[in-house]
């Protein structure tokens, strides 16, 4: 998942090339304040994993875990939470929002299939990220589409899918 909020701000600033690099780190390498924040706010979490994220030279910490059958991804900058992503079932969205998004997708694609849906930054700056496999002008492609909390399209990115590598 591309860290859209952070990346979007870079795009607005005119930086078009995003360099992301991540590596797994142990819980003990993460500050107490981050660990305590997760323990307190997301008690009962499962499968917690931490990653060092290097996004355009900026060092961030990503925490991934599950709670109540939802997958979470939190992004911290200097111990401060900067982004929350929750993987959710699209059908569980508000029906008005769901209808608006569906209408827009039906306008954009002759046929489409929803692969994944996330709520990003639940609260004031909330938006939705959807991964779509869709057909447009007879060509099928993969897209990341971003919607605001009213269901308006903010941005879309066409994804390039790499072949699954094998030899012989």
């Amino acid at each position: 998942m591309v860290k859209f909020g952070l990346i979007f701000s870079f795009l607005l600033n005119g930086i078009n090339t995003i360099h992301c690099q991540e590596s797994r780190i142990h819980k003990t390498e993460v500050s107490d304040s981050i660990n305590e924040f997760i323990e307190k706010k997301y008690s009962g979490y499962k499968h917690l994993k931490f990653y060092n994220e290097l996004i355009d030279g900026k060092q961030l910490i990503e925490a991934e875990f599950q709670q109540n059958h939802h997958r979470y991804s939190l992004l911290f900058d200097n111990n401060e939470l900067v982004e929350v992503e929750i993987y959710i079932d699209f059908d569980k969205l508000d029906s008005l929002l769901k209808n608006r998004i569906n209408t827009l997708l039906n306008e954009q694609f002759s046929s489409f299939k929803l692969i994944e849906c996330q709520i990003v930054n639940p609260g004031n700056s909330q938006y939705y990220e959807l991964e779509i496999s869709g057909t447009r002008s007879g060509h099928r492609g993969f897209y990341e589409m971003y919607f605001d909390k009213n269901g308006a399209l903010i941005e879309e990115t066409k994804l390039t899918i790499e072949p699954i590598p094998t030899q012989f």
Partner: protein
Amino acid sequence: MKKISLLLLLLIGSSTFAQNLTFYGLLPAINQTGRINSKFNYNFFASTTIDAFREKVNSVEYPATDFQLYIQPSIIYVASTKFNLAASYTYQRNNPFNGNFTNEHRIWQQAIYAIPLTNGRITNRFRFEERFIQNKITQKYPISTRIRYQIGYNRPLKGKTLDKGEFYFTTYNEFYLSLTGAKNATYSENWSYAGFGLELGKVGKVELGYLFQVLVRNSKQDLRYLNLCQISWITNFNKKKSDK
């Protein structure tokens, strides 16, 4: 006591008559992938299998030699992140630098289904081959068919994605089942591989691994074991990840 004697006789007998051969060698390979359009990619894979050591088995000399030259261009249809289809014309030359060489022209079709895991990915590959192997006596190329199933697993060793300067692990086992045409056995071959690779960025990846090939080499079901050190250079010209 009689039973033990019989068992011993069978064991001794089978070791006397079994003509299993074991070789050790190198397998350098190049693997290049590039995009044709958003749906189709091409792949060019080439390798050579080198038997690195001279051996003498049951008074028969087996000199160090090049066993095989393998050239495999293919077209890949990327149906989704999890499912790919591919087809190829492949050329294989056995004993390429000896007078007793044989050519093989091969056409194949395959499907790969990947299962993403929290750590890494499992791949299932089914391949159907139509083989045209040269008969040196008749100089004809009779058709034979074979099906192969490969189950593989690969994962980056640092984090979720493979970044420049990071290592990855890859392994697979492949079962070869000969269906029609000339064959020594139905379950005729098995390949097992495990290797580690390093992502070098624009230059591609280098991978070093151990490949163990078992082949039924004659109608008596004698086997040929091939222990290979495989070194691969893997490049992908698809640099751009997404289009805005």
